[in-house]
């Protein structure tokens, strides 16, 4: 006669706050974790899905980078139209103060882990719109954290591709699993 399955909270099955200690204490545990991470990161880096979100001139060069001749699809960079499916947002162009809350919300809507590429001088620091200006944000990093800055006004498609390569480097080096376990542990202890 089957007994009723008893509900056990997940945090008791997997004591996450201890997980990292246990893994590191195991012989070779840390190495295995790192290797698993590397595999995962390799996959993540090769399929960055940016959000199609163009603000100004840089968006045209971004379109060109997706299109013929530059064709970013070959690097696994496929534009997605909704932030829920995207893991990278390219802030292409100058962001106004009016749109800053919307960029912030889009960024918040993206699932973790998420990355930001600031494309062009305007998104990086205000660029040509820095002085005597009342409506442009002086750098999108006032609102959302930026991972890669691509300079240029506007950057050539090659520069944007270089930015993506830099982002791939960054992703490949990230202690992704470790960070995720630590965060889950923190959440579990809080609950």
């Amino acid at each position, binding site marked *: 006669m089957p007994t009723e399955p008893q509900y056990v909270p997940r945090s008791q099955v997997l004591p996450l706050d201890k997980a990292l200690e246990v893994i590191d204490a195991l012989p070779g545990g840390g190495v295995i974790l790192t290797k698993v991470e590397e595999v995962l990161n390799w996959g993540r880096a090769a399929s960055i899905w940016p959000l199609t979100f163009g603000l100004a001139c840089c968006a045209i060069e971004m379109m060109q980078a997706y299109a013929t001749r530059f064709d970013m699809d070959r690097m696994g960079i496929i534009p997605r139209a909704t932030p829920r499916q995207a893991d990278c947002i390219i802030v292409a162009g100058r962001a106004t103060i009016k*749109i800053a809350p919307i960029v912030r919300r889009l960024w918040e809507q993206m699932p973790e882990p998420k990355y930001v590429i600031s494309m062009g001088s305007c998104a990086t620091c205000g660029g040509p*719109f820095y002085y005597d200006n009342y409506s442009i944000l002086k750098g999108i990093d006032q609102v959302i954290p930026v991972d890669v800055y691509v300079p240029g006004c506007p950057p050539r498609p090659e520069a944007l591709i270089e930015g993506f390569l830099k982002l791939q480097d960054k992703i490949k080096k990230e202690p992704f699993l470790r960070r995720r376990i630590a965060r889950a542990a923190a959440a579990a202890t809080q609950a």
Partner: protein
Amino acid sequence: MALRTEELMLNMGPQHPSTHGVLRMVVTLDGENVVDVQPDIGYLHSSVEKMMENRTYLQNIALVDRGMDYLSAMANEEVWVLACERLGKIEVPERARYIRTIMLELQRISSHLIWLGTFGIDLGAFTAFLWAMRERERIMDLFESATGGRLHHVYFRIGGVFEDLPEGWTDRCEEFCDYFLDRLPEYDELLTGNPIFLARTQGVGVLPLDTAIAMGASGPVARASGLAYDVRKAHPYEVYERVEFDIPVRSEGDCYARYLVRLEEMRQSVRIIRQCLERLPAGEIRSKVAVTLRLPKGEVYARTESPRGDLGIYLVSDGADRPYRVKIRAPAFSNLYALTEMMRGWKVADVIAILGSIDIVLSDVDR
């Protein structure tokens, strides 16, 4: 008992792949029918007019490239230097005027190509986008070799152009004209005769002529409604009065007419470029103008035909080394205002087609 229905408010944008930038539209729907559309703009307002008051006449050339319609940077430069030259009565050498005309027409083609590509995407024809970008890339190469920039050229100067054309440029430009005319029939095959495309555009989003004029629409949008008005013909600048070209005008006023007008405009642009290349005179490319140019006190309104329509600048100078006030008359701003009229009564799926057909650039709308 009558069935009670409610109107539904639908918010499109500012992040929407088909709004061509950061346009927000509040669409009121009755079932599937569009009752009202209220465009909400200003998400790319870059305070260009204020900034221009604080920059010298020369510096402003770089600013109008970026701050105004970024798909046709040359057209922005043109209207700015034209206003300055008219007020300062500055001569432009013949060769520079020909070069400018060539550049303006190349810019028109490249801008229309972007429109064609994005309009194709809006209607589900992704191939059009790839093809249009392929052609556009050749124009970018031409621009880059002549001006150094792909998108923002800062090539025109008050009283001429920055540099002469590089060696062999005219041949390459000629080559591009041949290449491009060969490619245009492909678009006809891809879109003009495509039943899906026709069903989505023919008779959709009609803008009557009197409404178009009253709302201040211009450019291909007005020409598709039957307004035979092109600044290049009505008030020729540069060398437009010396070259032969036709203004395509349609009377239907629907999305398809706007498509045909733009497609024909590209053909005419090639025609203009060829004539200019043939007659391109040798000589100076720039008259002597001081870097710290001071224009005389006065006011002038210069208008040009940008790819989007009637682009004007009202320049007020008080004799200082920078303008006192600049008002940019943006064609897309007025064209976008006509959007509400075009969309009323159509289905929600047509919203994208109609918006795509008027070819707005938000940077031009908001400035």
